[in-house]
């Protein structure tokens, strides 16, 4: 039974994804209720899986790429359930659920073998956890940016359809974007610092210039610029939305970087 849980979770998330996408184009609120239920069931099975793994392994399962992606998806769905329920924004599900589902799928497709991170030091733990939480922040910012761009285009082209009705107001999306980055950025900063410390402790050098590290640093500088630009140069609204969409590409490339170097025994960062 426990080995079936991941598939059950995936199934529920897949159903939720389809239903939420359907909800985007239909006026019916019933669809969103059903998809919320599907997502909730998925989240329950996801959480039970995590707890079981925790019990059997004795720690939060994030030390493999697969586990990390699964934890990332779990955090995303949690954010959606909290924000979506609190603000009555079921429409967020149409963007977050596909992302969570794809993360789970990519986790399954990722090479199973040797990507286990050796939890030599406590800092590795902290590094991975912080990095994943930071990434969740950027993912939500990405979703907010995507919704902003869609709503913006609909307003500019004066199309008043179901989609424009369901998407939240621009200023809400802009502030969700900003808050998500403000949440993710400090975590990423700490994640990189603890990663560097771990690297120093394990392989004796803070930085080894592999693709993962390079993308992580580029991503860090990019989001730093986005945050600074908002305050100093008025990089908000439409510009901020586009920037966070581009920024998330950097995040994904960092993940790809992790995958690329994973065949050899994984060094912490």
């Amino acid at each position, binding site marked *: 039974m426990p080995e079936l849980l991941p598939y059950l979770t995936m199934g529920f998330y897949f159903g939720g994804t389809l239903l939420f996408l359907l909800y985007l184009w239909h006026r019916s609120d019933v669809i969103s209720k059903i998809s919320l239920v599907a997502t909730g069931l998925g989240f329950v099975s996801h959480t039970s899986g995590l707890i079981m793994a925790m019990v059997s392994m004795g720690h939060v399962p994030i030390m493999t790429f697969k586990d990390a992606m699964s934890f990332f998806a779990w955090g995303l769905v949690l954010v959606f359930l909290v924000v979506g329920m609190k603000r009555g924004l079921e429409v967020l599900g149409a963007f977050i659920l596909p992302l969570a589902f794809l993360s789970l799928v990519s986790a399954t497709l990722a090479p199973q073998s040797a990507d286990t991170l050796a939890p030599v030091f406590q800092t590795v733990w902290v590094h991975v956890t912080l990095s994943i939480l930071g990434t969740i922040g950027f993912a939500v910012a990405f979703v907010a940016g995507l919704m902003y761009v869609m709503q913006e285009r609909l307003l*500019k082209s004066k199309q008043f359809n179901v989609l424009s009705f369901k998407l939240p107001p*621009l200023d809400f999306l802009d502030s969700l974007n900003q808050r998500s980055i403000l949440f993710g950025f400090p975590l990423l900063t700490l994640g990189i610092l603890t990663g560097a410390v771990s690297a120093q402790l394990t392989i004796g050098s803070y930085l080894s210039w592999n693709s993962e590290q390079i993308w992580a640093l580029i991503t860090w500088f990019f989001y730093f610029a986005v945050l600074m630009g908002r305050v100093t140069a008025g990089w908000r*609204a439409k510009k901020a939305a586009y920037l966070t969409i581009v920024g998330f590409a950097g995040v994904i490339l960092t993940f790809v970087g992790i995958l690329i170097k994973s065949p050899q025994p994984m060094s912490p960062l």
Partner: protein
Amino acid sequence: MNIIVLGLNHRTASVELRELLAIQDSRMGEALGRLMAYSGIKEAMYLGTCNRVEVYAVVEKGEWGFRQLEDFLVSTHFSLSTEDLLPHLYRYSDDEAIAHLFRVSASLDSMVVGEPQVLGQVKEAYELALTHRSSGVILNKVVKKAISVGKSVRTNTRIGEYAVSVSYAAVELAKKVFSNLKQRVVLLVGAGEMGKLAAQHLVNQGVKEVLIANRNHHRAFMLAERFHGQAVPYEQLRSTLPKVDIVICATGAPHYVITKDDIEMAVYHRMNRPMFLIDITVPRNIDPAVKDVDNAYVFDIDDLKAHVGQNQEERLKEAETAEHMVREEVGSMVAWVRGLEATPTIVALRKKAEEIKQGELEKVFGRLGELSSKERSAIEGLASAIVNKLLHGPVVTLKSEAQSQNGFAFIEAARRFFELREREIHSGEIPLLEDETGDGVSEERLPQKDGV
């Protein structure tokens, strides 16, 4: 006796002229007092809205009354002369005057047909007339009826939906940009009816602040008072733009008041904080090229209509239904007013008495059988004497009081005491009102005072 109206509106006169004739509520007592001081004006009501200035009056002789009302309007403002004013005035009397008032309160004469405010303004005008005792039996009846007609047009046709929905659409669209309107600053440019409606809708949503810029600063102040906002000098329009989130443009200008450059600058100074602009006028006041400015969202009247999905033809049909309702009500009101003349009332009274007398005599003669002609004429004489003596007082009083301030009250009283219906007074020339009490005016909401 005539009911007359003298006035000007958005079709006949410019805003500037209408403004000169505006009388503030606080000075209405003095103005109505001045009106009532004219000999021959028995009742009067002053109706001033953004679109019109009209004086309704009940006068002894129509022609003479119009001249007195002209004199009154000219003297409301020192800079006015009769020559300035006369070409802009329209005059209606009796049926036409009543029909006009009914159309006004049904919002059929408004610039934006179906706008909801005029009904309230008619009510206010009437209440002021009541407070200052310039309204009497006739205006009470006619204006109350006008208000009830206005209400019934609003509830029974969909004429109000268009005006409401277009300005409401503006709010709906604003909510696509701003989640919480309570933190937003609104700038209203110009004083067009639709713009004010849209501003009103936003104010109802509890916006943080309303700024008003108008070429005529005095008018801006008046609007600022109404919206509890702040008037901004028109010359500072550009420098004000960066401060505002929502712009409603509704001036009468035939050119662009807000250009693409203005908005580019404003958005730049706002550090790209979005702006929402509504252009409700035709021709447009906001350069459509503003849509190319990032973070500025401009919508014109057609966009709003598209959002509402309103059908033009349907609206015309609603207006037609409303006109029909008004016409029906005018007919019965005119009949009631005509019945208030002294002479026909006296004639009807005598006729009724004569009929009763004849009826009773016939009954008595039938019962008594054969009578000598001397006996017959004695009985007839007795009946006539009683009837004449009983009627003498009322008839003399009606004749003498008809010309007094309370004349209509006496006539109305006589009609009720002797149960004279319009039918009996005005033997069926026009379709008449059977039951004049069932007019459905929400009387509980209007102060009761019959001017007696």
